[in-house]
């Protein structure tokens, strides 16, 4: 009786969770219409925003209310009618809060899409049902797989313009599915929609009785994402050491950070890298009191049983499950700098977890054509938006896992030391 009551209450007060997704595409695919529709139908679009967009659209002589204006907020974007950067949008349903990273789809904005995909649980790729898969769709799918976005949804849009044809939909779905299989995309769903008319966006459309899957929103709401996190490999990058200078709190020394992966518990035997010393977790503290376990993405403060020399950039892991400690790094790098290319011999700053290092480019093995996946082994540099396999030598060891296994401890950014700009995104292939 008691158990049933407790369960009932737990289900009722089930808290909302958070899903981040990236969208890629251009106005032509109806991406802005789709986002506008999701926002509007979940009551996340406000009257004054809509009125402002309608007024600007009318003043510009647009034939329809251009919902792209909702996200294209910068003066230059409005003037040129283009999207130049990642825009973040928010909506929520009673089950979930959603963060949309809305990125432009053209090849010259690859860096924006890579940026949006880096934190995404899911990527939403749009195709126009009349055109089917185009070069851009394949590129988007490839970038999502490179960034290890765990879930992909292909929206076959403008179904109203192909008479809601099952045949058209299935041809596109089959083609995409076989292409995605080559990319090892982890989870794929394909939904036929009309963003303009709202078919299969919030609720199942009556016009496509042959489609047996959920509506887009239902899929986004119910998708199981909790086990996308790596709960196996304990990785706790030390971010900051908390040592109160106070008369009321004495002898407190805690290592603050966000759990990158795995589950930490008081009493666990742990190893601190790079020193390699082992000790036990004495307690896991938060401002609301100690906790029995910590897991991603919790920000906590870990206290260790022994006094060790631990500082920012160190990593707490398990003695029998540690990242590699290496100065020679093989990585895929997406170059993001328009002013200078990546070249062999180039020196850069690296930020990886909470650790900073300097790195020299020892070699460029190949440059990847993001449309054909052809490897150009004769390439000598990576320009803006180009992706290639690079060998790096770092000044201090990176405590890294392969990006495929761990997005948090496998990703790094490359920084130009003179301009301080972020010029590249790296994904560790293998360390050691």
């Amino acid at each position, binding site marked *: 009786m008691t158990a049933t009551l407790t369960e009932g209450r737990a289900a009722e007060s089930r808290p909302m969770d958070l899903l981040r997704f990236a969208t890629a595409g251009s106005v032509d695919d109806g991406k802005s219409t789709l986002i506008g529709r999701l926002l509007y139908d979940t009551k996340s679009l406000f009257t004054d925003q809509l009125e402002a967009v309608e007024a600007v659209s009318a003043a510009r002589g647009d034939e329809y209310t251009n919902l792209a204006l909702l996200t294209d907020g*910068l003066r230059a974007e409005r003037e040129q009618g283009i999207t130049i950067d990642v825009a973040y949008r928010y909506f929520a349903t009673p089950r979930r809060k959603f963060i949309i990273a809305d990125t432009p789809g053209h090849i010259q904005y690859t860096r924006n899409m890579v940026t949006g995909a880096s934190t995404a649980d899911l990527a939403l790729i749009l195709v126009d049902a009349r055109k089917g898969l185009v070069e851009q769709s394949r590129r988007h799918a490839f970038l999502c797989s490179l960034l290890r976005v765990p879930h992909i949804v292909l929206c076959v849009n403008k179904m109203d313009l192909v008479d809601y044809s099952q045949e058209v939909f299935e041809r596109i779905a089959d083609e995409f599915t076989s292409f995605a299989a080559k990319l090892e995309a982890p989870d794929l769903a394909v939904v036929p929609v009309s963003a303009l008319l709202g078919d299969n966006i919030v609720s199942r459309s009556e016009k496509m009785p042959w489609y047996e899957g959920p509506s887009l929103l239902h899929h986004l709401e119910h998708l199981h994402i909790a086990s996308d996190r790596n709960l196996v490999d304990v990785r706790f990058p030390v*971010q900051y050491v908390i040592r109160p200078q106070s008369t009321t709190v004495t002898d407190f020394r805690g290592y*603050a950070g966000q759990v990158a992966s795995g589950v930490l518990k008081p009493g666990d035997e742990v190893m601190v890298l790079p020193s390699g010393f082992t000790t036990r977790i004495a307690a896991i503290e938060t401002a609301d009191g100690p906790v029995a376990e910590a897991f991603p993405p919790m920000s906590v*403060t870990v206290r260790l049983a022994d006094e060790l020399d631990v500082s920012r950039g160190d990593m707490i892991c398990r003695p029998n499950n540690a990242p590699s400690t290496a100065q020679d790094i093989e990585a895929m790098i997406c170059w993001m700098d328009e002013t200078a290319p990546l070249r062999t011999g180039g020196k850069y700053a690296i930020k990886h977890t909470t650790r900073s290092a300097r790195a020299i480019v020892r070699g460029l093995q190949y440059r990847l054509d993001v449309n054909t996946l052809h490897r150009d082994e004769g390439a000598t540099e990576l320009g803006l938006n180009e992706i290639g396999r690079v060998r790096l030598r770092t000044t201090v060891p990176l405590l890294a896992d392969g990006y495929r296994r761990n997005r948090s401890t496998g990703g790094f950014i490359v920084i130009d030391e003179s301009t*301080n700009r972020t010029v590249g995104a790296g994904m560790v292939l293998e360390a050691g």
Partner: protein
Amino acid sequence: MSQAAAAYRVSHLDALEAESIFVMREVVAELERPVLLFSGGKDSIVMLRLAEKAFAPARVPFPVMHVDTGHNFPEVLAFRDARVAELGLQLVVASVPEAIESGLVRELTDGTRNRIQTPVLLAAIEKYRFDALFGGARRDEEKARAKERVFSFRDEFGQWDPKNQRPELWALYNGRHHPGESIRVFPLSNWTELDVWHYIARERLELPSIYFAHDREVVERDGMLYAVNEFFRTRPGETPFTARVRYRTVGDASQTAAVRSDADTVATVIEEVAATRITERGATRGDDRVSEAAMEDRKREGYF
């Protein structure tokens, strides 16, 4: 669903809190002289709470700063001072009236001080050599802000260059800068107005009373309700009347409008915010109504 996955559930508020705490710790670890912009408004109250949590049991390791236009709601100013005292923080006041006095800025003919607070802010940054400023801005507030980074680089003139922003990947924030340049940091980037209110409820945070329904003498202008006070100039034809209102945002007292409301508790405010169809800045900020790109233009000049 596996048992393990069910057990390791993280609510959206917990995820947002964890991210904000990570951001604040990252700033303190990597930058020299951070400061938190604290106005006594709800977003900065939440931000200060997150700072408290990020460094507990140690004290918040940076001062707070208020850019004071001189047009204040007395309740908010009293709240600011009480909260600062409670946490034992240093408060820096960058005063617009003093800057007018000293000739740093000139009072505009319409008496509004939104635009002239930017040079005052920049002067304070220079005087105290702050290199990181925590601001409570959220991306859901305004379309220019929707494109702003969590770590937003500002050049030596405090300017934001929206077309030339640093890509921000994973949780790897780049706070590197040269002397004189600075980073604006927005820990609440991914929060919405409703998230803020849910967090206020969960944390039982105290707020200045003007956030809750009360009777106030107002005039209606451009469809908005402005309080009649010493900073607000009524125009001919405007007749003050008493209305039951509350404030959705708290800014300059001459520029911030109230909304009609009966919501006098956090719970009823949450209901109201969840049901409203107008954005908080659209409903309450005269300063955003100047043009389509009013916020972007102010930000380029070094605004928050």
